């Protein structure tokens, strides 16, 4: 079990550029979550997929951020026109099924730095 895989581990972009972050959930897990971690805001929920369908995107900034899950083996988080305030560690997590009692397994994160 390789765990949740996130690529790249580090990404540096210039202001205004696009950034695409990738997540491969644990095989057999049907729920995928995206979170953002910063010193100031802590860990914040962004969005959630279950069986590849978007279920809850209440934490996603309304502009410039989008997430997809085209198949059961990967999800992407895309940030258009990146801004310095987007600098954060973006964490992907998966769980066996969506639901409160199921453990979420986190990936190592992608550290995004916007210059």
């Amino acid at each position: 079990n390789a765990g949740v895989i996130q690529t790249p581990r580090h990404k540096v972009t210039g202001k205004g550029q696009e950034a695409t972050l990738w997540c491969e959930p644990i095989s057999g897990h049907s729920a995928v979550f995206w979170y953002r971690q910063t010193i100031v805001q802590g860990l914040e929920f962004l969005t959630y997929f279950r069986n590849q369908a978007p279920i809850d995107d209440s934490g996603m900034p309304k502009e410039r951020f989008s997430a997809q899950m085209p198949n059961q083996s990967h999800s992407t988080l895309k940030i258009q026109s990146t801004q310095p305030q987007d600098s954060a560690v973006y964490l992907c997590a998966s769980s066996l099924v969506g639901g409160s009692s199921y453990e979420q397994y986190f990936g190592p994160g992608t550290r995004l730095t916007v210059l």
Partner: protein
Amino acid sequence: GDSVTQTEGLVTLTKGLPVMLNCTYQTTYSPFLFWYVQHLNEAPKLLLKSSTDNKRTEHQGFYATLHKSSSSFHLQKSSVQLSDSALYFCALSEGTNTGKLTFGDGTVLTVKP
């Protein structure tokens, strides 16, 4: 909306001493509470979880009891070790199918020799 409060931002202790990290929450739903631990440059990992009122749950020497009457889920350990130095998050999931976690601000625990 849901919220989680961790009152200590930084706790520094000497090895062998007991520790309690505070966690209180607010939700209108039936709560599931979690403690996650994050070591430096690593992913958060689940330490404890509970949804049962007044039942102690334990793992790796850490323990916590969910008290719905006081909306609390404090993390305790009787004797901290150097390897316990890490960032600890309390998190809340509402009792529905979403499973999304609301995290507290986290407590950095530093254990000194």
